[in-house]
């Protein structure tokens, strides 16, 4: 098996190559086969690998395979080497499995599109890059994947490039993530300067001895890596790109902007946990960023009207939970939430895609409604996903993962009541907007007629994901209910176990509060949007409410802020100097010479007397020189 892990990314890459080079000449079924088939093949491989890994774990906890020496110069050396340990395995599994489902879904979803081949080529490239990211043995290779997924994200957000808004969204996504990437690159340089290596195991081994606890350079490195993660995972203050990224096709949103790429930041931090652990400040920062993000995004999600934007903000919010968990040291909890979130958020996006597709590309939830009976299957699956998102107690995977995080935010080593407060209020908000979403879209009267019904190939992935959204959480139970911790046992082969603070009240209290708040949230959604819909209408008469709503709606005004503070001055400045003021120096020299030429030309006026005077002046010059030298 050791020699086969390279095949996992190789399959999608092969698919990409074929589609990129000759895709336009192929008929659509062929494209579908190549595009979806390669990812499915990878998924199968991963399944086999996973089974083997669980049954007979490798000696050093990881499978590795070196393809070739990539770079070797001086004391810097880097290879194309893949490495799968437990952490990677989780990610690889999610990527290939969810990826395969989404590819299958896309085969039907994108059927009518002209650029079928380009779509699958980009998707395959994305899967390849994402796999490289999580399977990388060194940070340079990781960075390769990291940038690769950014590229694919760019390509797929701007997939329908004829619309300028889509291109703008794509560019915005790339620019903002690039800021994070650049910070991360600086982090890599710093890390290399300190440790002389970028190989992940070496870093993990060397860090505790090389760095001192809380030393400034450690903190700096960790913060820079965090910044990288913030960009890619759309955390405050680099979160503004993700809502706009919904311009891409729904499968793209599902795969890239919900399930996989946006969690790369989580992976990076988890991967570099040793460095982070050495810096309490960085840990705290991670937690605070996560906590703030989940609230900010949650508030925005409450008032959105575009179904995909709601989901986008909820994604930001959920990743905020993961960051929060990472920040308090609840490593496995974060990964677990990633695991469940991947399923239910992919499901939600795919279902949303079906809804949108069925309603003539209608995105506004208030022009939907009453779909419960028209699209029953979609409704049921969507409900499963929504339940997980809202963390409906016991019957949803989201409950298990989120509950764990909430518990640890109070009790883990880095936890604190404040962080817990952030998390728990986020839970309330999440429940509220989830309820709002489901109720507005599926209940009430129908506002737009359903035009098309989803194909089989689209519903099957929905069902599979719905099942997973429910059952995926069962691998890990709260300690006080059922002592089952399959997931954290697996992950803790790589990540440290969460250390609890002492003197914590019983867990049951927190669970109770969480459940209570979730239900409250769901009920208030139900109350406001189903029972007493006029309440909202009354509120909307009040300017203060409208102002607050608009503020949340615009994503807390971040876009406008960045526009005025960064974008406009930048464009103004570059435009001002478009002609390059250095050129003025040269032009000045040239025109100066011309002016001199003009002056000198006046001396050539054709008058003999003047010429003799010139000679005379020359003589005087020579004689004067002799007089005074």
């Amino acid at each position, binding site marked *: 098996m050791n020699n086969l892990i390279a095949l996992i990314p190789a399959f999608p890459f092969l698919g990409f190559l074929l589609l990129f080079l000759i895709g336009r000449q192929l008929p659509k079924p062929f494209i579908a086969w190549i595009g979806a088939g390669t990812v499915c093949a990878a998924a199968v491989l991963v399944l086999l690998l996973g089974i083997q890994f669980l049954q007979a774990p490798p000696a050093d906890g990881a499978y590795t395979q070196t393809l070739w020496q990539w770079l070797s110069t001086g004391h810097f050396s880097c290879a194309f080497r893949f490495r799968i340990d437990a952490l990677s395995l989780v990610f690889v599994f999610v990527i290939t499995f969810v990826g395969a489902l989404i590819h299958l879904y896309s085969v039907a979803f994108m059927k009518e599109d002209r650029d079928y081949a380009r779509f699958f080529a980009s998707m395959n490239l994305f899967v390849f890059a994402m796999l490289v990211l999580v399977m990388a043995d060194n940070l340079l290779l990781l960075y390769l994947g990291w940038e690769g997924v950014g590229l694919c994200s760019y390509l797929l957000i701007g997939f329908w490039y004829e619309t300028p808004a889509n291109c703008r969204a794509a560019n915005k996504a790339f620019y903002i993530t690039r800021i994070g990437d650049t910070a991360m690159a600086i982090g890599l340089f710093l890390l290399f300067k300190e440790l002389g290596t970028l190989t992940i195991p070496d870093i993990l081994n060397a860090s505790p001895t090389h760095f001192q606890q809380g030393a400034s350079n450690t903190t700096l490195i960790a913060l820079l890596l965090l910044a990288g993660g913030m960009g890619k995972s759309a955390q405050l203050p680099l979160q503004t790109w993700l809502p706009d990224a919904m311009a891409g096709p729904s499968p793209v949103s599902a795969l890239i902007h919900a399930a996989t790429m946006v969690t790369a930041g989580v992976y990076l931090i988890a991967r570099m946990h040793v460095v982070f652990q050495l810096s309490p400040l960085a840990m705290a920062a991670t937690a605070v960023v996560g906590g703030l993000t989940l609230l900010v995004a949650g508030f925005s999600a409450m008032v959105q009207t575009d179904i995909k934007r709601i989901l986008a903000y909820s994604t930001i919010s959920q990743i905020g939970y993961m960051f929060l968990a990472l920040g308090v040291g609840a490593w496995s909890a974060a990964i677990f939430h990633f695991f469940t979130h991947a399923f239910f958020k992919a499901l939600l996006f795919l279902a949303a895609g079906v809804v949108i597709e069925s309603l003539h590309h209608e995105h506004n939830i208030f022009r939907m409604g009453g779909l419960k009976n028209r699209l029953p299957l979609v409704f049921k699956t969507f409900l499963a996903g929504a339940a997980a998102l809202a963390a409906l107690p016991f019957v949803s995977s989201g409950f298990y993962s989120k509950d764990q995080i909430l518990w640890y935010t109070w009790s883990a080593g880095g936890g604190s009541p404040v962080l817990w407060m952030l998390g728990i209020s986020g839970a309330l908000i999440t429940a509220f907007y989830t309820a709002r979403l489901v109720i507005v879209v599926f209940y009430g009267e129908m506002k737009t007629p359903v035009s098309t019904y989803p194909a089989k190939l689209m519903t099957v992935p929905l069902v599979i994901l719905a099942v997973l959204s429910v059952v995926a959480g069962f691998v890990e139970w709260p300690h006080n209910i059922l002592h089952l911790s399959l997931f954290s046992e697996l992950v803790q082969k790589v990540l440290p176990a969460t250390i609890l603070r002492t003197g914590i009240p019983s867990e049951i209290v927190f669970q109770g509060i969480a459940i209570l708040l979730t239900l409250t949230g769901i009920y208030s959604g139900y109350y406001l949007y189903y029972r007493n819909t006029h309440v909202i209408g009354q509120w909307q008469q009040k300017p203060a409410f409208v102002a607050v709503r608009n503020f949340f709606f615009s994503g807390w005004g971040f876009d406008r802020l960045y526009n005025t503070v960064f974008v406009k001055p930048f464009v103004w400045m570059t435009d001002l100097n478009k002609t390059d003021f250095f050129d003025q120096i040269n032009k000045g020299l040239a025109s100066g010479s*011309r002016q001199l*030429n*003009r002056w000198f*030309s*006046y001396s*050539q*006026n*054709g*008058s*003999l*007397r003047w010429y*003799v*005077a010139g000679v*005379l002046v020359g003589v005087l010059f020579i004689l004067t020189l002799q007089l005074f030298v």
Partner: protein
Amino acid sequence: MPFNSQTVLIVAAILFALGLVGVLTRKNIIFILISVEIMLNAAGLAFVAAGMRWGQPDGQIMFLFVLAMAAAEVSVGLALVLQAHHQYRSLDIDQMKALKDEVPG
């Protein structure tokens, strides 16, 4: 009142300068030629004086050559004057300004 070499040179220099003033101030080409002759003559004087100072004939010989040169010069010069008079109907040096730089704008 004895005189020394410098005195002679100064007389030559004064004549030389006068010739130069003539070249510089006169408008008529004939006058300019005359002034040139004065200058050459002044230089010849300086030579003769220098030869005398050392008691050598070389200064005088040089004067001879200056004379020859002045003659050749004047002959060509006067030929040019004639030609100029035919072409320009005037000996005004200021009318001969066709050759000059056109100052670029």
